[in-house]
Each structure stands twice: as structure tokens, then as C-alpha cells.
């Protein structure tokens, strides 16, 4: 996400960063590029204007002009303004002290409400909370079936009434059922509607008045254009919004909606959807996102994801092996599996500082699959001591893994280099190692 905006901002800031002295003209020029980058990323033009005005006022303050490193101070100002534009700290949905917590999810057609509901439920159930999804979309064909299928996948109970045409009643009765079962939360999945459709908006206010949700969430497509502000404004003025989930953030190179929506609705962005699978929901951290946008990486999220997925005991064992230099292809295979668990490679790379530009290299997931196949076609002796792999073994391995002998050769050569490189791992040279393996 944000690759495009990030590239343009970086190059604009790079030019100004090096200056020993900054004039008003430097600032104005840099801000022109910043403005263009933001507009092309679909940030609303009014929000852009406000943003560049704010940065300019601060940047032309005495502090920057007299600083020894004015360029860096300027970047810092842009970072802070970006961060503040997107909110204040991470704001997850809080469960109410008196269960069940009632959550109502609303948004435009196709924004990803139903998937977001299931992802949210999964998040709660991982924390040991029990809840229920209510299928309140009575309009779209097969909407109930979709929620039912997703409910099974989470798994979470789904309340529905087929052939009932009163959404308000369905939510009310669903809530009643949840109360009788002493559940922790309910999430009502409402039908998609256009913010300009008054009658449909009324249905939402009816539901709100009848069940008084603790939390009303607007689900918005991260790729939304200039209209994002109108959508956010309409939903928050007619319905009242407590939080926002931005979806499809894995597809967007721009993501300007993230910057506009919070600015006009005032409601915090709580989560972002980053994939089609049910676990692809991340808590939104404004400061980390600002740092990602400016190409400074997001090491914190990377570390957290690693902690969630990597087996600590395994990691400790591996570390010992690396230190003793007995790291084998077998260990390498294990490592690949761990990395795969952390999510798509491109995602991971995007979080590493300085790696946002790697995109052009075409990080091909299939390169990883190929490496895996080759190692799997080796005997355990070969995996432990690659030195014994001679010409005929190479041929056999290539045939077994459906690759060419050159591929096997390259893997073995790269592996030997990695062993050497591991001596530098302590110096933080991990990126180079991954890079050498995954260049497709």
C-alpha cells in the first residue's frame, strides 16, 4: 500500500533534506511536489490544501530556518502532520463493560462490510470472546448465505431470518437471542447503501434508535476517490460514526482515503483490511502508517507479526546454530516456512526501512516455492552437508523438483554465501540475505 505516494514524497523530501540552509522558496517547491503526490493518491483536495498550509506555516517558523539540519527538521514536520492527520494512536474497538457489546457495521455497496464483520469476529474470538453475527442485509441476493459461510469459517454463530424483510426487527431479535445466551458481542452486518439514498440511510438510523449500538463502524474502500470525504461526512452526520475500517488496503498504491476520511469524520480508523483471508485485518497505527508512507518502514508491525507467527523456541535454536555456523539447508527450509506464515513477501518488504523501492525487482513468491521444492528433493544428508552434492546428485534433484540444474546450482551457491553472510547478521544485514535468494 501507499507505494506510489511514498515514492513521490520520498523524492520530494530527498531534495530538500540535503540542504544546509532552507529558503522559503525551497519549502514552497517541496510542498508543490508534496501536494501533487497527495492529490494523485486521491487525498481530497481540500484536505491537501489544509495539510500543505499547515506544513508551510510550521516549516517557515524560525526553528527550521535556523536549525543546523533544516532539511531533516522539515521531513519531521511532514511526518508529524501526516501522523496527526490520520489520528491519534491505535484505537481498537473496546468491548463494553456490560455485555453484549453491540456493533453495527455500515457502508457503501461493495466496500467489504461482510468480510470485515467476519474478520472482526475472528479477532474477538481469538481473544476468547463469544459472539454472534446478525445478517441484516435483506436486499442483496445471497447475502445471508455469504455471512453464513463466513460464520462457519471463523467460527462464530450467525443469526438470520430468511425471507424476512424488516432489517430493524432482525437486528432486534438477534440481539435478544444474544442476550439470552450471555454472549460478549454482536455484530450487525447491514446492507450496502449509497450515502445519498435517504430512505436507506433512514433504515440505519432506525436500527440505531432501536438497539443503541455501542459502536457504529463505517466500512470504506481504501481505493475510494475524492468522494471519500462526502461518504464519511454523510454517514457521520446522519448516523454518527464511532470508528472506521478501511478495506482493500493491500491493493492500493495510493490509499489517499486513509488521509481524508479521518480528517472529515473525526472518527478514528480502527483497522485496515489487508487481504482476502480472515486473519488479514490489522490494527491501524497512524504513526506507523505515516512512517510507511514516507518510506521509513514499519519495523514495529513487522516485529509484532513475527512474534505472532514465529515459534520462539525454534528461533532460539536457530540462533544457536547460526552462531555455531552449523546452519543447514534443513534449517533454511524451516525459515522459509516461518517467513511464509508472516504473510506475502511484498508486505514484509514494505515494512522494512528502505525497502519500499524493492518493488521493481519483482519479488516473486514462486521463487520461494522453487527453493522449497529443490530442498525437498534433497536427501537429509544432502540438506545437512550440501558439499556432498555432486553433478549427478544435482541432476537428480533438478528432476525431482521440476527445476533446472542451473537453479539447483544457484541455490547451493547462494546458500554458501548466506552462510558467510550470517557472520554479518549481527550487524543487521538480514535484508541482503533475503534479497539474494528471492530475486526471481
Amino acid at each position, binding site marked *: 500500500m501507499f507505494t506510489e505516494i511514498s515514492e513521490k514524497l520520498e523524492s520530494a523530501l530527498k531534495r530538500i533534506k540535503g540542504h544546509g540552509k532552507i529558503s522559503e522558496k525551497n519549502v514552497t517547491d517541496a510542498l508543490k511536489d508534496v501536494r501533487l503526490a497527495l*492529490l494523485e493518491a486521491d487525498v481530497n483536495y481540500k484536505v491537501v490544501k489544509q495539510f500543505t498550509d499547515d506544513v508551510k506555516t510550521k516549516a517557515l517558523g524560525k526553528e527550521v530556518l535556523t536549525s543546523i539540519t533544516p532539511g531533516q527538521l522539515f521531513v519531521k514536520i511532514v511526518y508529524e502532520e501526516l501522523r496527526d492527520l490520520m489520528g491519534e494512536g491505535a484505537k481498537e474497538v473496546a468491548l463494553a463493560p456490560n455485555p453484549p457489546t453491540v456493533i453495527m457495521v455500515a457502508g457503501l*455497496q*461493495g466496500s467489504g462490510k461482510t468480510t470485515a464483520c467476519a474478520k472482526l469476529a475472528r479477532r474477538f474470538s481469538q481473544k476468547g470472546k463469544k459472539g454472534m453475527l446478525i445478517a441484516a442485509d435483506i436486499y442483496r441476493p*445471497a447475502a445471508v448465505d455469504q455471512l453464513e459461510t463466513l460464520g462457519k469459517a471463523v467460527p462464530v454463530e450467525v443469526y438470520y431470518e430468511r425471507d424476512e424483510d424488516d432489517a430493524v426487527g432482525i437486528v432486534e431479535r438477534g440481539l435478544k437471542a444474544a442476550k439470552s445466551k450471555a454472549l460478549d458481542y454482536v455484530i450487525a452486518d447491514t446492507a450496502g447503501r449509497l450515502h*445519498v439514498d435517504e430512505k436507506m440511510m433512514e433504515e440505519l438510523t432506525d436500527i440505531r434508535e432501536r438497539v443503541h449500538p455501542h459502536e457504529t463502524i463505517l466500512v470504506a474502500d481504501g481505493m475510494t476517490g475524492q468522494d471519500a470525504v462526502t461518504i464519511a461526512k454523510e454517514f457521520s452526520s446522519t448516523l454518527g460514526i464511532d470508528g472506521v475500517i478501511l478495506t482493500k488496503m493491500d491493493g492500493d498504491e*495510493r490509499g489517499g482515503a486513509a488521509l481524508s476520511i479521518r480528517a472529515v469524520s473525526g472518527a478514528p480508523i480502527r483497522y485496515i483490511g489487508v487481504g482476502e483471508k480472515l486473519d488479514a485485518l490489522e490494527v491501524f497505527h497512524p504513526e506507523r502508517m505515516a512512517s510507511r508512507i514516507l518510506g521509513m518502514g514499519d519495523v514495529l508491525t513487522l516485529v509484532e507479526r513475527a512474534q505472532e507467527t514465529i515459534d520462539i523456541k525454534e528461533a532460539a535454536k536457530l540462533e544457536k546454530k547460526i552462531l555455531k555456523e552449523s546452519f543447514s539447508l534443513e534449517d533454511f527450509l524451516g525459515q522459509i516456512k516461518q517467513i511464509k506464515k508472516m504473510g506475502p513477501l511484498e508486505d514484509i518488504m514494505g515494512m522494512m526501512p528502505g525497502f519500499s523501492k524493492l518493488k521493481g525487482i519483482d519479488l516473486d513468491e514462486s521463487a520461494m516455492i522453487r527453493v522449497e521444492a529443490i530442498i525437498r528433493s534433497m536427501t537429509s544428508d544432502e540438506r545437512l552437508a550440501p558439499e556432498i552434492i555432486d553433478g549427478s546428485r544435482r541432476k537428480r534433484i533438478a528432476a525431482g523438483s521440476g527445476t533446472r540444474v542451473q537453479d539447483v546450482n544457484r541455490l547451493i551457491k547462494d546458500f554458501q554465501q548466506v552462510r558467510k553472510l550470517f557472520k554479518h547478521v549481527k550487524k543487521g544485514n538480514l535484508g541482503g540475505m533475503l534479497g539474494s535468494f528471492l530475486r526471481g
Partner: protein
Amino acid sequence: MNADLFQKKFQALKASLKKSRSVLSDGLARIARGGGDRAGTLESIEELLIGADIGVRTAGAIVEKVGSSGISLNEESVRDTIRNEIISILSGTCQPGVDLLVKPHVIMVVGVNGTGKTTTIAKLAHRYKTAGNQVLLAACDTFRAAAIEQLEIWAGRVGADVVKHKPGADAASVAYDACSAAASRGMDTVIIDTAGRLQTKKNLMDEVAKIGRVTGKVVDGAPHEVLLVLDATTGQNSISQAKAFSEVCGVTGIVMAKLDGTAKGGIVVAIAKELGIPIQFIGTGESIDDLAAFDPETFATALLGGD
């Protein structure tokens, strides 16, 4: 086109673009009234166009035309200049020559998640049925929960047949079966519903290319049309969607869905200008008839106001 029909079409589109019309035409009126120097006025016009999702580059090019035309910047002449420029951009895209003699005529519908592919397919099917064609729908979205059911319900409503496999099945094989079935039954039209996929997911994009290729093995020259469904509320990302889908499966036309909700729709202009892909239909509402053939003049007039 006869005058009555034009009026009818124009009124419907104008109603659906009502919001955008008021934003752009009110904005133009305000800017023109505002006085100020020429450069400032041109900048305000540029911002107004950007606000309608026309995009920075295209907005810049249009404003440049206005600026260099030497017209006085009053409301009427600015509006006319912009309108003419938009019409010329939109008319510049070439309509593909479609060979309607081959039977079945295979149409593949693609797009990212949630743009309205399935609903568009229902509207298309209805359109072809009304024209007297026999229509077969292929349920190739085997991924999303209940996508097959959704298509079946629509098929029932418009009276089209459906070829489907189980959820999770290979999408290309569904397309293959559908084309074979349509060919052997002598049907007129096959419309293929594909799963939504973000244009950045390489393996999913490869899959959609494969679906297209497979249809060509059954029917000569298939897919005869590849329609990309875009969501009118999406911003400049639509351009990268159009680019990516064109690269993998040769998009022949665009359907702009949900044009009734957005205040803008200007992205249509940006796509025509930057990619030259023709806009074929626009979706203007939720009912089965709410699909209109795209007409540059009607669109430009509806967007900018005036007659």
C-alpha cells in the same frame, strides 16, 4: 438518435449525475463570479476538476486548453470549453469491432472486489434476453462465499441458464464447460462472472488470463469482449486497475458501476485520456434496467450542466 429518445436518456442520466452536476456547475458559477486574476481562476477550476476525480494530469491538460484558448473566463465559455474538451477526449477512444456472427458470443466480466460485477452481469443478461438472445451465465467466481448463489438468484430473475461447479472449483474449467454447453445448445451469448481480484495479486491475475484463454479453445476468437467493471466511487486507482487488467486479459470496454452514488464520475475522462479504453455502459441504479449505453455528449452535458 431521435430527439425523444435523446431527451429520455438525457433526463435519466442527468438525474443520476445530479450531484456531480451541481458540484461542478455550481463550482464553475462560483469561480466565475469570484473575479480574481486569471491564474487564480484557472487554479480554482483545476481544483474543481480534481475534486471530480478527473485526475491531476487530465485536469491539468483541460485547464491548459481553457487557459490557452484566450476565452474570457466567464461561466458559460469556460463550461463550453471544458465540455468540448471532455467530449473530444471521450470520443477519441476507439470502439472495437465486435464480430457478432460467431456463436456463442462470449463476454468475460472482470474487476477488483466489490465493484459490482455480478449485478452488472445480471443487467447485461437482462439486456441481451430482452433483445431476444439466449443467454448462459458461467459462475466462475468459485472463491467468494455465496457468489454462486448470488448469480443463480439473478439468473432466475432474468431467465438465464447458469453453469456452475462447487465452491472452490477451478474457475477456468467452469468457463470451459459453459462455453461447450452454449456451443452445443446453439445459444447466443455466454457471460462469464469471475471472482473479484485486486490487480496487484499476480497469481490471481494469471488465473483470469487463463479463464480467457480457455474460452478461446472452445469458441473461435473468444472471449469476444472483456468488460472491466469499475466502481465510480474509486479514485485514481481505477487507472491502475484498467492498465493491469488490460495487460493480462485485453479489456475491450469498461462498465462504470454505481455512477448514481458518486458526486463525480470524472474518472471516466481520465481513463479515456490516459488509456484510450472505451466506456461501454454505465450503471445508474440498483434495478435490473439501470444499465445505460455510454454516450460522451450526454455524459459531458450531465457532468457540467448547460444544454
